[in-house]
Every structure is written in C-alpha cells, then in structure tokens.
C-alpha cells in the first residue's frame, strides 16, 4: 500500500469510510509529516485537538456518518476563521486573536467530516507574493529551500507540496493561490468571484477576494470545490449559482473544446522565462488534437495597475477596523485615543500592509477618487466585456501563471513595484471575476516547476476541471 501521506483526499476518504484506515491514523501520519518539515515554516500552528476530532469522526463513521471529506486532513490559511483557534493573518497585530465564530467554509469542511490540522503561514493580511511579509518568518520553497514558495498563500502551497495534507485552503485577491501553486508544483484554483462564501475570511479587497484550493491532483481540487462552494446568506456577494458535481464530470470528452490564447499575452511573455513554457503548452494541446484559437483581450495590460488601485483602496478601508480598540493588540505606549489608533496600528502592521493602506487612501482621497478608483472600475468593466467577447470564441483561455520560477528569498524585497509585477498574469482573473486554475506544467530555470492557467467563463469551473483532468491524464501517460 501507498504511504498514507501520499494518498489523495478521495483515496483517504474512501479508505476511512471503508474502515481500511482510521481517521486518527491518517491524522497522526500527516501531523508527523508536518513536524518532520518544521524547518520550512509552512504551518504556524498544528491544532492540538486535531487527533481528538479524528477520533470523533471515526466514532461517527461507526454509527453511519459518511461525509464527502470524512477523515481528510486539511490545512487552512491563517486568515480563515475557525472558532476557538488563533487567526493571526501572519500579523503581529492579530498574534493572539482567537476566532469567535466559524467561517462558512470551515463550517462546511467540518460538516463533511474533514479534520482541520492547522493554520498555514502567509504574507501578512494576504499582501505579498512570497510569504516574506509574514510577521512569523518566511516559508521556504518545498523544492529549493533558498527560494520563496510564492504567496500570499505560500504556507498552504508548501504544505500540499510536502505532503503535509492532501488539500489546503488559501485565499486569492490577485494570484495568491495560483502563483504559489506554480512555484510549488501543485494545482491551485481561484474560483469565480461569488462562488465561495467570504464570510469569516479576513478581508483584504472584498470585491476581489475568494477562497482558493490547493491540491496534488484535479479530482481532489474538484471535490473540495463541491464541498465549499455555494450561496451563503451571510455573504451578499456569494452567487446564487448552481454548484455542480465537479468530480462526476471529470474524464468527459474534451475533443470539442476550443482553447483561446490572447495575442496580448504572447506579446507580454516575450523574453520572459515563461515564454517557452507557454509555447510548449500550446504545442502539447495541439498534439492532443485540441483546437487553439487566437483571441484578444485588448486591455489586459491594464490589469496590474487596475488591481493596484482597487485592491489597496478596499484594503485601506477593510483594515481600518484593526485599531487597537476592539480586539487587536493595543499599544502599551498609547495614552489617549489618537495614540491608541496610531501607535497600535504602526506597531501592529508590517511595512507592506502600511504601504498598501497609504496607497489605498491616496487613490480614494478627495480630488483623486475619480481619476483612480472610479477610472479603475471603468477599466474593470471594459475588461469584463472583452473577456465575455473572447469567450464567444473559445471555452478556455490559457495564460502563464508566473513570469518565471520561484525566486531567491530576499532577492526582490526592496522594490515594491518589481514585486507587484509578479502578479501580471494572475490579476486579470480577479479583476474580471473569472475562475482560473493553475496546473503544474513544465520546468523552468534550475529545473523548478512552472504552471499555466486555465481560465473559463464566470461560474464555468466545470470546463476547467474537465480540461485539466484531460491534461493530467495525458501527462501521466
């Protein structure tokens, strides 16, 4: 038999339900794996009660319980609330913050019998693409220790890549799941905006945030989406769209699929390390008899700047609630209200978070609002339209996930704009609200993994999974 930690989520569930394995055995094996790999700093805390919860699931199974994730160990990014557990967002400001309620996704995980093992490291408040902005130290790349795992959900990506869990949850605002998935050689989905409830996810930029899913294969990814997707009465922006049985649809015929490549993307990739990889990918699809069509997303180049207006603006407002008054750490040096605000926030937030709050307040402030924020929303509208048009000609649009492979820790920290450019291929899915899955494909520099993105129409995750499964199977041949 395969080692427990190498099993997929579906295999674990089936074996646990068939009592070939106990949930406790599974849980213990994965916790051991986490402990063995502590030096990667992927997991901030292993929940002490995980084994106990696993035992409970075993008992429930004995009395007839059968959940879609029965006994499956999950690691969650540290900005997803799990009642009674610390949720720090990798920030000093929330270092001791204990969640007072369950996020909707956690509720759904628990209902289906999942075991939540621990919380994963991240860039503070999900701002960054390397986990270097964590107040609790960087997470290391699972393939090359000296490199970043990507971010902001770097801990979750690393955890899956190193078999600490079969599936992990991250969150996306501009690529925070897909980019680390690419750097760590795993699958990473950013679902359609509104697909998954944001209730209980610490907000970064409300109109762009979505929970994302890391897995080692397509089927597990689809399974997780099935469980956590759906309308939630606590999130007005969650969509009233049917959640399909994605796992059932895998393996279907993709011969009629048309794959679109935006010509602007080929242009933008010129000379970048990802250029060859995307070309190889297109050749690979062609060899598999999948039709490739040229499409155009004229303003795709504006995506990055649009993102760096909308996201900081919303963040500045969303993060204003962290003020040292109600639940975040209050500065010991504050003597009056204004000092509580200023000193607590200045001591609590890290540099990148402060930078984005300032930038956000700048684009919202009087005299600049129309020129930046309002204009960015108009560009967003335009991009949505252009994607709509492009999807009239194809089912899936492909893009590189990242410029290149994972970079060395510390090599980019000095220039924020350079770092922001890392997001150039991922942000458009967030701006347009579209689903996008980064699948591991090819190798780049130093034999490090690379990814490509499969994007579809809003709420058409089904097509993405179908094609991804086809590619996964073909690569395995």
């Amino acid at each position, binding site marked *: 038999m395969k080692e427990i930690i190498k099993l997929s989520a579906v295999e674990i569930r089936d074996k646990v339900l068939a009592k070939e394995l106990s949930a406790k055995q599974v849980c213990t094996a994965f916790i051991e794996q986490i402990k063995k790999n502590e030096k990667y700093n992927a997991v901030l805390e292993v929940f002490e009660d995980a084994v106990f919860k696993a035992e409970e699931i075993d008992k429930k199974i004995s009395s007839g319980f059968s959940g879609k994730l029965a006994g499956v160990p999950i690691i969650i990014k540290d900005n997803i*609330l799990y009642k009674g557990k610390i949720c720090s*967002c990798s920030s000093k400001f929330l270092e001791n913050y204990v969640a007072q*309620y369950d996020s909707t996704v956690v509720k759904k995980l628990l209902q289906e019998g999942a075991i939540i093992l621990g919380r994963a490291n991240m860039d503070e408040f999900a701002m960054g693409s390397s986990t270097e902005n964590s107040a609790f130290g960087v997470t290391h790349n699972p393939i090359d220790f000296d490199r970043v795992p990507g971010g902001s959900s770097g801990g979750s990506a690393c955890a899956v890549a190193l078999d600490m869990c079969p599936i992990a949850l991250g969150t996306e605002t501009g690529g925070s799941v897909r980019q680390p998935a690419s750097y760590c050689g795993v699958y990473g989905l950013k679902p359609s905006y509104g697909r998954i409830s944001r*209730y209980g996810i*610490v*907000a970064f930029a409300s109109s762009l945030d979505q929970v994302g899913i890391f897995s080692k294969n397509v089927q597990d990814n689809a399974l997780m989406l099935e469980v956590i997707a759906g309308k939630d009465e606590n999130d007005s922006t969650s969509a009233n769209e049917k959640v399909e049985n994605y796992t059932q649809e895998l393996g279907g015929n993709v011969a009629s699929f048309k794959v679109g490549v935006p010509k602007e993307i080929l242009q933008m990739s010129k000379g970048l390390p990802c250029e060859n990889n995307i070309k190889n990918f297109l050749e690979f699809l062609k060899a598999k008899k999948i039709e490739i069509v040229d499409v155009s997303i004229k303003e795709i180049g504006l995506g990055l700047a649009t993102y760096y207006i909308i996201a900081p603006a919303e963040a500045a407002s969303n993060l*204003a609630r962290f003020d040292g008054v109600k*639940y975040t750490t209050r500065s010991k040096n504050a003597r009056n*209200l204004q000092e509580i605000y200023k000193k607590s926030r200045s001591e609590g937030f890290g540099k990148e978070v402060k930078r984005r709050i300032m930038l956000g307040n700048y684009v919202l402030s*009087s005299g600049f609002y129309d020129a930046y924020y309002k204009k960015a929303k108009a560009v967003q509208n335009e991009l949505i339209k252009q994607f709509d048009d492009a999807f009239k000609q194809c089912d899936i649009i492909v893009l590189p996930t990242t410029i290149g492979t994972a970079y060395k820790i510390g090599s980019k920290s000095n220039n924020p704009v350079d770092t922001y450019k890392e997001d150039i291929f991922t942000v458009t899915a967030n701006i347009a609200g579209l689903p996008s899955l980064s699948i591991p494909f090819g190798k780049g520099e130093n034999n490090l993994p690379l990814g490509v993105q499969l994007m579809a129409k809003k709420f058409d995750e089904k097509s993405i999974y179908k094609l991804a499964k086809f590619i996964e199977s073909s690569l395995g041949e």
Partner: protein
Amino acid sequence: MQYDVIIGLEVHAELKTESKCFCSCKNEYGSSPNRNCCPVCMALPGALPVLNKKAVEQTIRAGLALGFEINQTAIFERKNYFYPDLSKAYQISQLEKPICINGHLKVFDKEIPINRIHLEEDAGKLIHQDDLSMIDYNRCGVPLIELVTDALVEPHIETADEAIEFLTKLRQIYIYAGVADCEMEKGQMRADVNISLRPKGSKEFGTKVEMKNIMGFKSIHRAINYEIERQKEILDDGGVIVQETRKWDNDKGESYSLRTKENAEDYRYFPDPDLLAVNISNEEIQKIKESMPLLPDQLKKVFLEEYGLNEYDSDVILANKEVSDLYRACLEMYFQPKSVANWFTTEILARIKAEDKIQIDKENLVWIIKSVDEKKIRRNAAKDLLSYIWGTGLNAEAEAKKQGIMADMSSDAVFEILDKVLQEKASVVDQFKQEQDPKILNYLVGQVMKETRGKANAQEVMEKLKERLS
C-alpha cells in the same frame, strides 16, 4: 443691515424594524451594553453586512410620504473615518445614488424642497465616565434615514419657527407612515442645522455654519436664533463668517466652534464592495404605496369633510397619532364623529397632556361616550367614571353599576311611572297648565325620581314631561 436667512436641515431618524440594517441583531432601545451585537456590529474580522429588506422598504415609504422620486438603483457607499462609536471605522451610507431624491414638505404656505433621503446605519454609543469612555455597540447598525433639505432651491426655510414647523410635520409624517417612532428623548430623531445669511435681495449664498446633533425642538429653536444673531453681529461689524461646525451648549445658551473647514474630514466615499446595488422595481414601489397608511393631511380631509369636524378639533386630534388612532378606532365601534371628538378634545387630551400616554381602551371609552349620549349616565358622572378607571384597567360598565350612577331603568319603564304620576297628580298638572310655573315641573320630576328611586335620568324625564304637558 437687513439680511435673508437660509436654513438647511439634515434630519436623522431611526427606522422601525425588527432587526438591524446589516445584520440580524435586534433593533431595540435600552438593552444592557453590547447585548444586541454580533460579529457584524463589532466589526469582527471576516464579518459581512447583509442588507435588511424592510429597511429599504421603510426608506421608500418615507420617501413616498414626502413626494419623493425613488431611484431605480440604490448604491451603498462607505464613509470612512475613525471614531470609537463606529466599529468598522466606516459607516455604510449612500452618496451618489440614494434611495429617494427630490421631495418636498409644506411648511405654513411654503413648499420646502428636499434634496434626498438616504439609508445608512447608526453608530454605537459612548458613555463618558470619570477618566474613561465606554463603548456600547447596541445602536451600531440600527437603520437610520437621513433627510437633507435643498437649501440651493427656493423657497427656503428662513426662520426658527419655520424650521420647527418643518421638523414637527416631518416627525408627524414619519410616525403616521409607520416609518419611525421619532422619540426625541431616545435620540430616535436628531437634526443638524446649517445657517447662512446674505444681504437682503442678494443672489449669492453666504457662508454656511453647521450645528450638529442638537437635542429637542426647543433647543433647536434657541440655537437657530442664537446663530442668526451671532452672524448678524459679525456681518454688521464688517466681519467674515467662518465656515465651521459649531456645537450648541443648551445649558449656557450659546455655541462654540468644533472645527473649521480646513480641518474637515476627507471621508473617502466609495461603493461598499461587500454589498450589491439594489434594484427597486415599480412593482415594489406600488406595493409600498398600496400599504401606505393615511397620512395627517389625508386624515384631516376626512375629518373635515366626512366627519364634519372643525379645523381646530381635527388638528388637535391629529397632533398625536395615538390619539387619532384611538379616535378612529372608537368611530369604528360607534360612528358619532362629533360626539366622540368632544370627548377627545377635552377629556382625553387633558389627561394625555398631564400623563403623556393614553390609559384607556376603545371599548370602555366608547361605552362611556355612548352611555352619555343615550342618557344612561349624566355627563359629570361619566367624567368622574373616566377618571376613576383611567389607567386601572377596570371595566366602565361594571364600575358604573357598582357605583350606582347608571340610569339603569329603561325609558319605557320610566315613562310608565311618569304617566302614573301625572294621573295621581292631576290637580298639580292642571295648576301648571294655568300658571306655567317651572317650579311645578321640577316638583313633578322630583316625584318621578322618587318613584324610580333615582334610577331614571332626570334630564330625560324633564324632556318627556314637557312633551306631555305641551
């Protein structure tokens, strides 16, 4: 120098709903601190607002009651500023597309234009004690409507009296429409006032001075007159009005500057990404129109034209919705508008003035009024009875019987006795026919009352007697 005064009003009213505007906590006044709070009220990480349909309906209702247009799409914006009573450090409000635009309200003979009514959330409460300020978020998220008059368009509110009449009428309309209770002492209705002066006849607007959150109509009246005088003095001395926000100190009877325009907040409004814009269809508006209760002006018409009341009585009854509700409820049981109105404008109002609330139900009240009309009880006895049972929950009829104040013989029985007395006292009757001395009538009534052991209505007996002897 002579000046034109322009007064602008911003009026906040807390809406009547079961739950708060953006979460399901109770919209309830007077609970212990932080009892009606959830992750949304406290702005816990990850909490999200979910808009209450009733709050939108109530805002539309307020708008329709004041002749507003209803926007087809309403957008909610965040108004960002730090203050401890505002848990999220932003207030969800409306800027570019409020629910109601362009309404008006008649004040004396002027149709005052109103710019907008928008829906927003109330902030929490701060309690200052010794060296601490204590924060209670129970009120945080209570639905609030803000009405803003249009001071750029004529006619303007120009005097303190007009401002108070505006507020009084507005309050009455909100209460009648069922939109808000507007209990001033609970802070359910609050007004900001801005005032500017310009030389008489000038077209240019003067500099506005704003006065925030003045409690109570009397204080508002004083504050306005104070501010008008203050500005006059400055202008007469050749001075310049500073654009500022001032705080009214009612104890001292004066105001002081809170902040000037240079220090004005930059609220960084932008559409709240946690909420979607709301489409308001004509059908929804129609539904609300159809469910709209009669408003004071409509009721007054009914009172004057259908009930035949005079202007004064109508106004007096309509001034308090509880009173007019009870009046109309009484008419449903006993349709004698004038007779019932008499009781309201005298007895009921006098008691409410003293005690501030109605403490009798329609059944007992109607029984008393009807009994007087049917001459079963003398008016004075009825008034005493009303006082006696007021606020006790006692039954009027049972109490009247117990006290023996009822003329509990039927008229027929009384008339039988009357006829008997007339036969027995035929000589006295003859004497009356000759002398026409009213004393004789009194004597005869006395005899009837004696025979009935006081259970007849003397007035009724007298009338019948006169009829018989004429």
